[in-house]
């Protein structure tokens, strides 16, 4: 018997010594393995192209438009570089809008800290197990649930014939409500046409944005520090003021970035609940829409960006970004 091996079956194919090559997928995988940067560029190309072209492109267009001006006679946009549109922002009527918006943003931020702190502190320190989940959901669901529905709910509440009037009448406190509405500046004919109403709705809608970073900062306060403070004879209030509050500060600043920025950029809440006096958002919306003055609208839209950049620079120095 002659033992001759069939060469076609036994001789190893020199090219497929380890594994047979299976096609394009394998070859591409090999390229990606040898050159990780190629993989990185391939992955990032599409999303970056989108973000740079659509988003950064649009932001550039916004800046560009703000340096154009509108021809007062024809109403056409004059596509030449000018600072005259920004100079228009300095008119008293426009400055009023900017100051009003910044003041409202500050008031909303302050209110959110005062109402949000107990919730964040309780959730971070005392809530355990099911209560912790309840608190988390209790803050997260309002954060994500429909913005317009929330605003609409407050229109129902603040209306002159609505639940607040009914409740204050019921407990005989309508004199107090009327007294508050009679206050200069913040008062009005009813809650839904006063600054108090606008402030309440802003506060309600943006409150969760303040609570979450505040809670994150508070969760990082070590228990041992509170014990040390207590051992050294501090009362609860002193511990709160000198230990907890300073450590929560980065979280508060992080939350205030949201409440401040969101209030400045909103135009729907003051349109639905508030007096007829305008905020930056409303000015932008009206100028680009009915007025057709896109350059001035763009210049107005740049104002919140500049204010937020200043705010972020300060916040960064205070270490607020570690709490995000």
């Amino acid at each position, binding site marked *: 018997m002659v033992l001759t091996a069939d060469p076609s079956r036994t001789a190893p194919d020199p090219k497929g010594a380890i594994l047979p090559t299976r096609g394009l997928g394998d070859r591409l995988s090999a390229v990606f393995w040898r050159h990780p940067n190629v993989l990185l560029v391939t992955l990032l190309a599409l999303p970056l192209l989108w973000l740079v072209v659509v*988003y950064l492109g649009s*932001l550039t267009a916004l800046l560009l438009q703000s340096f154009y001006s509108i021809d007062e006679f024809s109403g056409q946009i004059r596509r030449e570089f000018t600072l005259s549109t920004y100079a228009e922002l300095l008119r008293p009527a426009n400055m009023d809008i900017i100051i009003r918006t910044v003041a409202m943003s500050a008031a909303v931020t302050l209110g959110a800290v005062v109402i949000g702190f107990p919730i964040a502190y309780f959730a971070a320190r005392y809530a355990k197990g099911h209560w912790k989940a309840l608190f988390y959901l209790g803050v*997260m669901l309002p954060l*994500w649930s429909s913005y317009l529905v*929330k605003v609409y709910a407050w229109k129902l*509440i603040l*209306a002159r014939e609505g639940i607040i009037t009914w409740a204050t009448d019921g407990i005989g406190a309508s004199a107090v409500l009327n007294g508050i509405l009679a206050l200069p500046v913040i008062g009005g004919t009813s809650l839904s046409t006063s600054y108090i109403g606008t402030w309440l709705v802003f506060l309600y809608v943006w409150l969760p944005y303040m609570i979450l970073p505040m809670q994150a900062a508070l969760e990082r306060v070590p228990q041992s520090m509170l014990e040390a403070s207590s051992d050294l004879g501090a009362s609860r209030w002193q511990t709160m003021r000198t230990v907890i509050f300073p450590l929560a500060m980065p979280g508060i600043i992080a939350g205030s970035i949201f409440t401040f920025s969101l209030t400045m950029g909103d135009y729907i809440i003051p349109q639905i609940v508030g007096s007829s006096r305008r905020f930056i958002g409303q000015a932008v919306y009206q100028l680009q829409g009915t007025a057709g003055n896109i350059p001035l609208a763009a210049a107005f839209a740049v104002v919140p960006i500049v204010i937020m950049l200043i705010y972020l620079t300060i916040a960064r120095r205070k270490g607020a970004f570690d709490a995000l």
Partner: protein
Amino acid sequence: MRSDNRPPLILTVSAIGGLLFLHVPILLIFLYAFTTDERTYQFPPPGLTTQWFAVAWNRADIWPPLYLSLKVAALSTVMALILGTLCAAAMARTRFFGRDQISLLIILPIALPGIITGMSLRSAFSIMDIPFSTWTILMGHATFCIVIVFNNAVARFRRLSGSIVEASMDLGANGFQTFRHVILPNLGSALLAGGMLAFALSFDEVIVTTFTAGQQSTLPIWMLNELVRPRQRPVTNVVAIVVFVTTFVPILIAYYLTRGGSETAGGGK
């Protein structure tokens, strides 16, 4: 040492009061959908009826905005899923030049107020003479939905152990097979959660949309018009309930898909 485990009464009261402040107003929307009073917001409602659900069903002006909103939300979720996952895959475990700038770029559309994103897109359309269409709405929505998917996916990528990828490679799978059979199943629930949140965000978005929609009407824009010029007010409440439920359910699902980890969905919007 004094045991400090019981919260002071004032703290408990103000924390629970704060939570009630966050939740009670929404309940009124439900109540007012059943009121018999269609002209004012009288409280307590003079009578209760379920007729407004039938009226809303038969109002022809509600359906086209609803379809448009669902279409835009679905398409922008798909785009955000693709673009967001690609970003997350590239950024999760790597360090490279410009990485911080790229993550800033991803977050920026949601960090800046919506009016800036909206006005920017509006300026770009104006300069380039692009007419308003479903696509112009979609461009805005997809841009701010990317970050939602990215946040969910990047957290899961970081938790994913590198050794299972290496094991897959050692067993002879190429990069695409590893992605299909190893990475994707592990990523699944995070992507689903991110997709749910992106859908909810897009379905409900109004500020950017008003700048990019032109004459078209999404459901939130329809609602906004009804808020400014109301007719049959309880019908608006019925629609508000629909919008609320359409965003509420995906958010709850997203929470249950990712709870228990360090990456629970919804921590940042």
